[in-house]
Structures are given as C-alpha cells and as structure tokens.
C-alpha cells in the first residue's frame, strides 16, 4: 500500500469533458490539483457525435466559457463547421453549434492540461474513494496506490461497469476498446449512494471514400461563423467543411422490421433506460411506422481522417444487419463501415444526493459531475464539471461555494433539475425546461456569469478587461438611446418598433462592435418581457433564500402525508424552493412546511 508522495487540494477522477473543466478550474483558481485517468490517449474524447453545441447545449458552452472554462475555446479552435441555429426565431433560442475535429480536440485538451500550472496529469484507474467519518480523504487506484486530497471530484462518465452490446454480443467496456471501471460504483453504493443503470448508443462510422458524396445534398456552415468563446477573435479563420444529407428508405424499414428480435436495445436484453431524444433507428421505425423517410446526416470526424459519423442511425442490431442498413441509404450503396454501431449500458449515481454545489450531502468534500450523474452530452458534463471544480477548490480553500440557480444559467437549471427531480432516464438540457428562457440567452452569458468567474478567481485579467469594456459599451449606448429624443420619443422607444433593426437604424453608431450592437438591440426590443421575467425571478428568489435546517426530522411534521415525509427525508432539500420542485409535494404541504419553520424559529 503506497501513498503518492504529494498531497493535493483537489483530485479529479476521469479526464472526460467534466473532468477537464473541473481540473482546469481548480488549478487555475490556484489549488494543487491532480487529474487521474485510465487512459491519457482518450482525454476529452467525443464518444459519439463529433459536435459541440446545439439547442440548449450551445448556451451551456457559452456559459462555461463566460465562467472562464475551456470547452468554448477548444470547440472554436478545432471546429470544422459553425452554424448558429434558430436564427429564424427570436434571440432567446439562438444556439451555436459546431462540428469538431475529434482527434485535434483531444490533442489540444491534453496539451492544455499538460501545460497548466498547479495541475498534475497521471494515468491510473481509480477504484475506491477513501472516507474517514463523513469526510473524504482521498482515492485509491486499481494497483493499490493511495492519493490524498482535500476535495475529490468524480467524473467517470459511462465507465462505471460499462457493458457494450452489438446484437447478441456483449463486451465489457466504458467505450469500445476501453476497459470499464468495475469497482468504483460498488464503492459508491457502499457509501450510501443510489446506483442505477442507464443506456445509450452510438451509430456506425463509415469511410467517406466509399460514399457517393456528389449525389447527396450538402449542408454548409454559416458564411460568417459565430464562435463559442467570448475570447475567440472575430478574425479567427476557419476553412469550413460541409455535412451531407441522406435518408432512410422503405428497404431500411424492412431490414429493421425483419431483424427487430436481434436488437439488443429492443429485445430488452439491456437493462437501463435510454434517452428519448436519441432514439435508435429501431425505435424510430417502430414508433413512427408511417413516416416514409427519416433524415440522416453524414458528419466529418476530422480533417486528418476519412471517417464520417452517420447521425441518425444509432442501433444495437448485429453487425451483418448494420452492413445492410448502411447500404440501404441513398449514396451509401457501396459504403464500408469502419466502426460498428453499439449500445452501452452503465451505472450512474442518482444526483438527488447532491447539493446545488454538486457536493455530496452525505460525504463532505466529495463532488460528482458529468454523465455519472445521469446526464448525457459533453456540454452537460462540462457544465457540471466546471461548477464541481470551482466548488472543490473553494472547499479546499475554505471559501464559500457558488450556486447557480435557475435564473442565472442553464447550468443552474440543469443542476436544479438533477437534484430536485433525480434521474430516471438520461438527462439532457432543453430550452423548454428554463422558466426564464429570455434571461438565459447565448448572447448574454458573459453579462450573467463572468463576474462570478472573476470572483472565484477563474476569469483572468485579459478576459475581465475585455468583458468590462463590452459591458460599458452596452450601458453607454443604452443610456444614449434612452436620453436622446426625436420629437417626444426617445431613440430607445423608436428602436422598439419591430420593423426597425439596429443595423438599419439611422441613429445607430456604426463603430460599435457587433456583439455590443446585438446586445443593445435585444435589450431594447425585449425590454418589457425581460422586465417581467425579472419580477418573476425576484419572487422565485424569495423562496430560494428560505433555508431548511439540514437536520430537520420530517417525521415530526404530522400534517404531511406519509409519502411526502418519505420523499423529503430522501431528497433532503436545502431550501423551500427546492422542496417545492420535488415531484408530488403539493403547495399545501409547502404551506405546512413554512408554518412549521416559522413555529420552530427557523
């Protein structure tokens, strides 16, 4: 039994998207950090879709970047194609998205980690969390080495008892070709966490040289790419690559129908619930049998590879069926599969045991972030990772932790959903989950979050200076518009006319940067709505500040129904606000709780 000679402030287990953000955050804030991973060669690997962003997810990436995180910069630097989605709708639902070079993303992230001061990188597989009393002390690797740290962040993704299925074959693995972590989830179970099983899948990859790309429709990137990071210069040049479109046919349907019994996902051979928004092709064809065609996208995986990702063909049908399926798609009659599609099931930990800081309620100093909490998506993982990393650092430094709530950020919406509702199917962020969607726009992530990032020490001078300049420019321009009158109407009011855009506004200041103009225009045109949402936010915050004592014995509150007492005892909400969002707790019971707290002097 050896102990690593150096002791750390923060230990991060797992170098996926959550782990990277956590490790960088902690070390950049100034904590001595170590990142332990089973495989240095798959740091920051995109297991599935070679893309970052999308609806809701794009907003997450902007928020991570605003806090001083890394994902946005990485996506920009390794992007192959950039598109801003939903530009035909209002700015509250615009979301940036980019196809990325998978290999390059990994290499870049590894380099950043290697060169980061205060951060050590080490290849080791963690099996155990070492706990003394109800505090974490460190972790232990497969080979018996102990690492001592004040705060531990677990970000093991899909590796906990991961089991891969292709047709009838099952192979243990956290990803294809990588061994799973077998003992860690048992350890967590013993520590009192609820462990469950989820599943997901990934489609086949094909060699683009075997595809008749010329016969297919192309999807190009935006002419002027809009980047994720607030720090990426507008002048950054990208040679964009196209994606290609094809679709399923009647033949595809037939193949699926004839082979349904061989589908691991469909035949029920896999336990665990899959994501509704990422259905297998079997799911789609069975659920919507009358739909003649299902859309399929062919996406490049990198500049230095000919592998293309078949988006929309997730499946767990056996290999021979997959070959037929792929050939049934127009343009892919001669396509060759390079990697077969597969389904994977894995352990996850029910996040109801976490606080809004992502720290465990039962074990001090232990943080969980990423897919281990039942989320899916790189962006969802990274969003949790940066919060866990910041708070692990705060914990190690004995400083107050940060909490983002539902009106601060999509990260806040996500974390609150996770801890108050728990997870029974893989969680993904949706804009419809946000009550304050108009506040949580991709364009104002910095206005909302960069000050927080600055306060914890993650946002450095350069980013901060740029931010302050932008903020000042916006405020100055808005003041100017509000105080300049034409006749008896201010410029601000005139601009509110939906037919007038700032770009064509005769009183506009042409010298302002584009992002400032956008911000000014949005704040002008949506002013009434923004104002009203802010009022709702105020009312919501009142409930959030009403704290519940952590040792409250719900069994004493006889007016609550038995099942509600049980739920509250299980979830142990920190605030009345959280309690009100637990499924099944009625407003009347919240009233009871409030009265009880008042009576007992809380």
């Amino acid at each position: 039994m050896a102990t690593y000679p150096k002791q750390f402030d923060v230990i991060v287990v797992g170098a996926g998207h959550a782990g990277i953000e956590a490790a960088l955050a902690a070390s950049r804030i100034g904590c001595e950090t170590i990142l332990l991973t089973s495989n240095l060669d798959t740091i920051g690997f995109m297991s599935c879709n070679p893309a970052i962003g999308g609806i809701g997810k794009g907003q997450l990436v902007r928020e991570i970047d605003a806090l001083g995180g890394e994902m946005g910069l990485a996506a920009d630097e390794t992007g192959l194609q950039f598109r801003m989605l939903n530009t035909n709708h209002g700015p509250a639902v615009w979301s940036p998205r980019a196809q990325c070079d998978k290999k390059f993303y990994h290499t870049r992230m590894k380099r950043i980690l290697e060169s980061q001061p205060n951060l050590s990188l080490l290849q080791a597989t963690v099996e155990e969390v070492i706990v003394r009393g109800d505090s974490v002390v460190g972790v232990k690797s497969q080979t018996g080495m102990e690492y001592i740290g004040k705060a531990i962040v677990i970000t093991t993704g899909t590796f906990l008892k991961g089991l891969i299925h292709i047709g009838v074959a099952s192979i243990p693995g956290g990803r294809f070709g990588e061994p799973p972590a077998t003992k860690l989830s048992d350890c967590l179970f013993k520590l009192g966490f609820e462990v469950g099983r989820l599943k997901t899948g990934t489609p086949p990859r094909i060699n683009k040289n075997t595809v008749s790309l010329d016969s297919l429709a192309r999807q190009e990137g935006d002419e002027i790419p809009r980047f994720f990071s607030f720090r990426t210069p507008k002048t950054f040049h990208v040679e964009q690559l196209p994606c290609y479109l094809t679709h399923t046919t009647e033949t595809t349907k037939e193949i699926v129908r004839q082979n349904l019994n061989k589908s691991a996902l469909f035949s029920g051979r896999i336990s665990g619930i899959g994501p509704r928004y990422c259905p297998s092709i079997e799911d789609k064809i069975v659920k919507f049998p009358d739909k003649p065609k299902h859309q399929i996208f062919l996406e490049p995986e990198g500049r230095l590879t000919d592998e293309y990702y078949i988006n929309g063909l997730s499946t767990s049908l056996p290999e021979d069926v997959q070959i037929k399926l792929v050939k049934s798609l127009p343009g892919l009659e001669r396509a060759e599969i390079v990697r077969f599609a597969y389904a994977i099931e894995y352990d996850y930990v029910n996040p109801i045991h976490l606080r809004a800081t992502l720290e465990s309620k039962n074990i001090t100093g232990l943080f969980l972030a990423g897919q281990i909490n039942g989320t899916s998506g790189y962006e969802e993982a990274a969003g949790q990772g940066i919060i866990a990393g910041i708070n692990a650092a705060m914990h190690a430094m004995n400083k107050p932790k940060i909490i983002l709530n539902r009106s601060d950020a999509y990260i806040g919406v996500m974390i609150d959903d996770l801890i108050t509702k728990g997870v029974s199917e893989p969680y993904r962020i949706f804009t419809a989950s946000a009550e304050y969607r108009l506040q949580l726009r991709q364009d104002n992530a910095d206005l909302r979050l960069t000050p927080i990032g600055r306060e914890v020490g993650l946002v450095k001078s350069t980013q901060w200076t740029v931010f302050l300049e932008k903020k000042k420019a916006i405020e100055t321009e808005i003041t100017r518009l509000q105080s300049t009158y034409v006749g008896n109407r201010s410029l601000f009011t005139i601009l509110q006319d939906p037919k007038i855009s700032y770009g064509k506004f005769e009183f506009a200041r042409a010298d302002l940067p584009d992002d400032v103009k956008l911000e000014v225009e949005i704040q002008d045109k949506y002013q009434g709505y923004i104002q009203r949402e802010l009022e709702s936010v105020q009312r919501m915050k009142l409930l959030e500040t009403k704290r519940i004592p952590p040792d409250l014995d719900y069994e004493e509150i006889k007016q609550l129904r038995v099942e509600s007492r049980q739920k509250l005892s299980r979830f142990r909400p920190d605030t009345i606000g959280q309690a009100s969002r637990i499924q099944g707790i009625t407003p009347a019971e919240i009233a009871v709780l409030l009265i009880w707290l008042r009576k007992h002097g809380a």
Partner: protein
Amino acid sequence: MEDTIAAISTPLGTGGIAIIRMSGPQALQLADAIFRSRAGRPSEFPSHTIHYGKIVQSGQVLDEVLLAVFRAPHSYTTENVVEIHCHGGVVTAQTILTLCLQHGARLAEPGEFTKRAFLYGRIDLAQAEAVMDLITARTERAQTLAARTLEGILSQRLETICEKLEPLRAEIEANLNFPEDDIPPVDQTKLCQTLDECISILQEILVSAHETRILKEGVSVVIVGRPNVGKSSLLNALVGKERALVTPFPGTTRDFIEETIALQGIPVRLIDTAGYRPPRGRIEAAGIQRTLQLVEQSDFVIHVFDASRPFSELDHKLQKICSKKSVIPVLNKDDLPRKIRSARYFAEITPISVSALTGSGMDTLRTALIKAIQSRFFGFGQTAQEVMVNERQANLLQGAQNHIKEARYHCDGSQKLDIVSDEIRRAIDLISQTTGKSASNFVIDLVFSRFCIGK
C-alpha cells in the same frame, strides 16, 4: 393566514339560533366594532367565555346575541375565534355576516376553518377529511342543481382550453428545440385560430364572473314612486324594522335613506327616494334631480304605486323615465280597495301586489328581487358564497386570458415563437391554479410522443 375569515357556521334556514364564526388576527377587534355589552369589549373577554350583548350597525341594534371568545391557540383553528350566536332567521344571520364583511373580514371558503385547523396542527389529516366529508354533504344538499352544473361546466371549459393550448406549445417547442429534425413548421393559421378560440371561451367565463365584482359594493335597488305611495313603508317592511321616517304627509323623505340588507348573502342597497312630482321649490327640485341620477346608476328599480288610487300621468311619466332599467313594479296598499287595473298599465311585467302595512306580499317581493338579481348576476343560479370564491378564480382567469392575448399578438411569423410559447405556458399555469391541478412540465412528453425526434 393573514386575513380574518367569517362565515355562518350553522345551516341556513329557520333554526332557533344561528352562529356566525370569525377566525383570524382581527377577529377580536372586529367584534369590538360591532358588539355592545355591559360586560365590556370582546378583546378584553377571557378565553372560553360567553357574554350577552347586542350587534349594532350605525347605532341601530340588529339583534340581541351571545358572543363567545376563544383566544389563540386554544380554539378550533388555533387563531383568535369569535362566535356570535344570534336569533335564527336567515336575514339576521346574513345581515350580521355582511356587517362582519363590511368591517374587514373575508368570506370563508368552504371548509376553510377546518383547513386552518389542519394547517396549524390542531387536527390531523384524517380528522380534517372526516370534517370535510360532513361539510361537503351539507353543501351538496344546499346546492342547487344549477350551481353544481356550473362547476362541471367551468371545469370542462377550462380542460378544453388546456387541451387546445398544450399541443400548441408542444408544436412550438418541438420546432424551437429540434430545428435540425424533420419537423413540420408551426402552422401559423391554426395557431392564431386556436388562440382566438381560447380567448373567446375565457371571455364568456369572465363575463359572468366579472359582474360579481359589483357585489363588493352591493346591488343597488332604488325605490321610486309618487309621493306618499308608501316607499318608506316598503323600505321598512323589507328591512324589517322601523327605520325611515314615515308620516302621512307627502314630501317628508328629503334625504336619501339607504339601507343594506342581505338577500341570500348578497348585500342589497335599498335606496329610498323623494316622491316624484312637479317640484315646489329649489330643494325639492334638486331632490328630484338626484332621484333621476340614482335611477340612472341603479342596478334595479322598484317602482311603487298606490293601488288604492288611480293610475296617473305622473306614474306614466315615471314609468317612461325608468323604462330602460330593470323595474319591479309594486302595487302597494293592497289592504285598501284597489283602483288600478293591472293589465292596461303594466304591459311587460306583472306587478307584485303588497301591503307594506300588513306585510302581505312582502315575501313574494323578496323572492322576485332575488330572482332578478340572480338572473342578472349569477347566470347559473349560484349562491353568493360560490361566486365570491370564484372571484379569486376570475382574477386568475383574467390573467390567463391576458397571456393568451399577448401570445396572439406575437403570432406574426417565426420570430417571436419563443415568447408565444412562454405566454402560453403562463396561461396554462394560471388556469391550473384555478382548477387546482398542478401543471407539470409535460410539454416535453408531448413533444416526444408526437414528433419523431433525434439524430
């Protein structure tokens, strides 16, 4: 639990004693304001004591009562509770209740005392439910068929609205959250149409609820007629006591005497006026002018005729003045030989024959008045209590309608669909608060069940 609630705790009808109960922070002070007794003031009475005294309103005694005080926390609700035991009779109890409401209490919702008892831990859920069952049974017996139908109709209508709104929202959210998937764009025409339908349905519901606001000030009933036809006597008879000055000489009521009575719990302001005749002197002229104004502003008019004297030109003139209002013609003095022959002069409405002196026909008049009020303000024959509860709902539904109108305003293309969706969400929220069902965020479920999503 900031407000003080009041209600009649005994079944309405003719019982020996009726109990009006009040609970809340203001109960004792409210009792001070309306109760006079040699024993002192209710706010000084020890808990669990009963004292004899009188309920007074503007110096007039309404009833001799026994008043009981229960001090927090040793009461049914654990708040300060005052019980007024009065001498039976619907009108007395209701008048005292109205008096309490006028002094700042709020009409309790069905079961609200028990609800407070439960919330404050005085009784547990099982006990609360047992009480509620009893109350519900009583209430149902007391409810008219029409009122129950209303509740059913209202819930049904609201369900219909939600059933129209939720798929709209799902369609919009599918488009907003999955733009790369093969989802048909939002059908703008259908969107606008459906929103318009919902606005109309809510408008219908609101129109009937809206009129109940008038109740806060009371339904106004102006009593008009030529001098000395017995208007003041009629007023007294309706109110049930000697109040207005009644002399045999015409022209004595120069001031406008107003009395509020409670008819089935509805505050009704009876306004006596100066006799209508060609004025002699400026003061009388001003009085007549004022009468006409009151008629203009009134909800109902009781036009009193002296049945023992022939129908005159003045009667006819007054009829014409009041022709645009809801009029109840009353032939008073039917204890005397009748000189007016109904059919000729009262084409549309059959007048009610009464004698304010003997009391004959007074119940018929009260009933007619109640019916007139009900059909105007409570289209479905609701009782006042239900309507007042529904006022809370009316506010919520008005809010919901406003949100749907806002959504409708933004249905002009795809630019503001996120706002449309949010407005619809708020509307559904408010409607759910009305029906008491919680609106879970199952728009996402709807999206997945209707649209093939997922790359």
